[in-house]
């Protein structure tokens, strides 16, 4: 019982950490984007204000029970992936539900939320939402290929499907996987561009085309939960990348530094890019990224 309480407490703390870091990253993204565009930009905490404002909206509408549940679905994905992904190396405080096969579990649970939210978006009856969802799913079929290739390369090289095992490998050898398996890292990072949905892969939300796509009927508290879930999820994803490729982190500060360094990649790539069409985006992922994925697998299989 005590253990469960302890874990619950740890889960809440890690959620709060992930939430604040994730939101800060989003704010920093806006700030940096503004600086690149020669603007002053909003303060770094702007997204906190946005989230609070959204939560303080008095009214909200929904088109049915699926839309009502949609944000909860996506929150499940964020929280559960946060629980499964080890946040720090060998830290007992943050709950760590990882197990043999958690990488595969993560691949699927990461879809759980978006699909649930997509159901909510579908129920609004707004054509833009549905179009956004179809784009999102198509793009997912695109970037999952290099991403899975990278993971499979690591899995077969180290004969494990567990994140902790991969981290231990790096700790023991003292060498980050991004250096020992560069192609896998390359493929995974290219897939990450799609995962973060920044330009040129922002075809899902595309405010100018689809009026923010799946979220176009969500406001107030729904958007609040979605935004929070999005930032938590962003942090979870970055942590996963750090865990797998950059040897994890021993304390939170190193983790923040590493994740932010990774976060810069999609962000900076996004600031300087226009937008792809859906099939271009899908094909892009099946091009070079998948090629690097194949190289990674070859490397893993041969050496």
């Amino acid at each position: 019982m005590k253990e469960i309480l302890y874990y619950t407490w740890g889960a809440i703390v890690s959620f709060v950490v992930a939430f604040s870091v994730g939101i800060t990253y989003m704010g920093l993204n806006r700030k940096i984007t503004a600086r690149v565009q020669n603007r002053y930009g909003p303060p770094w905490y702007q997204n906190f204000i946005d989230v609070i404002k959204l939560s303080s909206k008095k009214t909200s509408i929904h088109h049915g029970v699926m839309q009502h549940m949609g944000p909860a679905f996506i929150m499940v994905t964020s929280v559960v992936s946060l629980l499964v992904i080890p946040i720090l190396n060998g830290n007992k405080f943050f709950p760590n539900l990882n197990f043999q096969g958690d990488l595969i579990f993560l691949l699927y649970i990461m879809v759980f939320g978006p699909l649930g939210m997509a159901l909510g978006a579908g129920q609004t009856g707004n054509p833009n939402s549905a179009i956004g969802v179809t784009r999102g799913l198509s793009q997912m079929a695109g970037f999952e290929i290099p991403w899975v290739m990278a993971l499979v390369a690591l899995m077969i090289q180290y004969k494990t499907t567990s994140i902790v095992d991969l981290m231990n490998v790096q700790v023991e050898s003292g060498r980050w996987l991004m250096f020992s398996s560069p192609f896998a890292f390359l493929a995974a990072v290219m897939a990450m561009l799609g995962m973060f949905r920044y330009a040129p892969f922002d075809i899902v939300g595309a405010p100018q085309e689809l009026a923010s796509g799946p979220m176009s009927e969500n406001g107030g508290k729904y958007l609040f939960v979605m935004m929070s879930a999005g930032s938590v999820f962003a942090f979870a994803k970055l942590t996963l990348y750090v865990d797998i490729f950059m040897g994890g982190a021993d304390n939170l500060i190193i983790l923040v530094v590493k994740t932010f360094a990774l976060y810069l990649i999609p962000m900076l790539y996004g600031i300087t890019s226009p937008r792809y069409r859906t099939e271009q985006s899908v094909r892009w992922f099946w091009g070079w990224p998948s090629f690097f994925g194949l190289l990674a697998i070859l490397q893993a299989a041969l050496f």
Partner: protein
Amino acid sequence: MNMIYILFSLMFGGAILTFLAHKVSGLLRDILFVLTILASTVLFYTKIHTGDAVDFSISGLPLQWGINAYGRIFSLIVLGLGVMASFYSVSYMKGKERLGYFYFNFLISLISMMGILMSHDLVSFFIFWEMMTWSSYFIVIYNGKHVQRSGINYILFSALGAYAMLMAIVMVYAHTQSLMIQDMMQAFPFFPVAYKVWLPILFLTAFGVKAAMMPLHVWAPDAYSDSPMAYTSVFSGALSKMGIYGMIIVFVTMVNYLPDDTWFRETIAWLGAITAIMGTLWAIAQDDARKLLAWSSVAQLGYIITGVAVGTPLAMLSALFLSVMHALFKGTLFMAVGAIEKQTGTTKFNEVTGLIRKMPWTFISSLLAIIALAGIPPLGGFVGKWMLYESLINSNHYILVIAIFFASTSAFLYCYKFLFGFFLGQEEKEWEQVKEAPALMVLPMLIMATLLLVFGVFPGIVLNPIDLGMQTLGFSTTAGTFWSMSGLFNEWGNQVMLQPLVYAIGGTFLFFLILLTVKGFKETRYVTTKDISSSGEVPLEHENLTFSEGFYQPFLRAVWPVMKRRMMSYYQGFGQGMEAFFDYLRRVYSGNGQTYAIYVLVFVVILLLFKNSLFG
């Protein structure tokens, strides 16, 4: 008299009585139909025990019927789905024509599936196999003129497979002088090499047809989608599993003894993977729910085939587990489509939308089934997929994992399309009067969907019988090794999977759901789907804002180069060529008496000329 005889006489008698009762009264017929299945299920599970067998002989051929633990796994699918589908069909088929015919064939196909599982010898196996083929064929063509083509395709491919099997059976018979499957298994290692290669190929052709393996799958999408939905759930859920049943036997007993079995396994595994990919892509391209599900069945069977072909204990376990899951979720989904067809009269995504509030129970069961189909935890599909990936990675099938994963990811596309097309989207006025399907149709779906959830959380319920069955096939027990292998199956009685994760999922979901509901509860209101932000316009009731045409057009554009070449067109070309050839040959019979007389003379002359070489 032995219980096995009683079981078969009960089912046959029930089938014939049902057929005859059709002439007397509809109610009697329905009752007889359901009772037959129920009674035989009860009989099977209470009175017939693993290891029971009866021997008899027909015309000098010694035959044996019995049941072992391996067949029992599949009997779960057949009888379980059979019971559900029987209740469902009573309601679904109400008011249709030729019900005696339908129920008769339905029962015959169930009987023959049970027969296949209970055959210990090749002849009765083949007999039941063919009975299954024609009974299902008669249901495929039940819907009238427009489905005859799919029927002919189906019977043609099935017969191709069946004849391949017949050939293999007589080869075995000629070589071993015995028809027992057990004897074949024991004798196989001592067969000549040519037999060792040909027998598995012939058997796999037979089973591959039923399991819709590329390139023998072309009948499947049409046949699945054209038969009445009440039967398709059994057709796709259970009948196709007979192919898997046979395949596993072939792989365990034959391929293991091939001189070099790697290439064989790889080929079949890749065929399975390609089946999965192409099935998925074509499912995405469909605009009709029945076709979509049919292609999706093809794809799902592809995973199972891959699992079987890879053939490690874990892969086998996953294939069998996925078989059970596929039966459940595809059964549910086909039933849901049937319910929608019954209530709205169409199964096209671009015709019917927004049924979620009208048919909530159908929606919930479809939702659960779709989640399981997509392999998303915590439902049953995930466990199977997880085991499949794990086994593929452990057995060094790197590219195969990618292929399977691609198919599985793309499957989300059609999963979403299915739910969105029917249940979500604009709630059009046209479908305002639609009611939830009758309870008899909804209950089976709900029960099966619940089972999916239960099996997802407690996979041991299914995995234990599967483990027993695999021991019959000569695998060592997997329970000890795999339960402890991963936290997925942790120590809580070997039954519970993902316990903390399930709690985490449930807890998070509930917390945020409550948060969303409670926060500003009074100020949250429901608005209709016409009240959407569409540039300030107020859509009128007749204005259709539904998005369903060209749903995945961009994606399809991206994958079009792969889909351009269709297997079907090759077969069609071949068929047309053959027909032209036949037509040419037919002209030998010119209808002219003189020609015929000349034939006779020419024949005589030829015989006389070559008499020495002919009769020397």
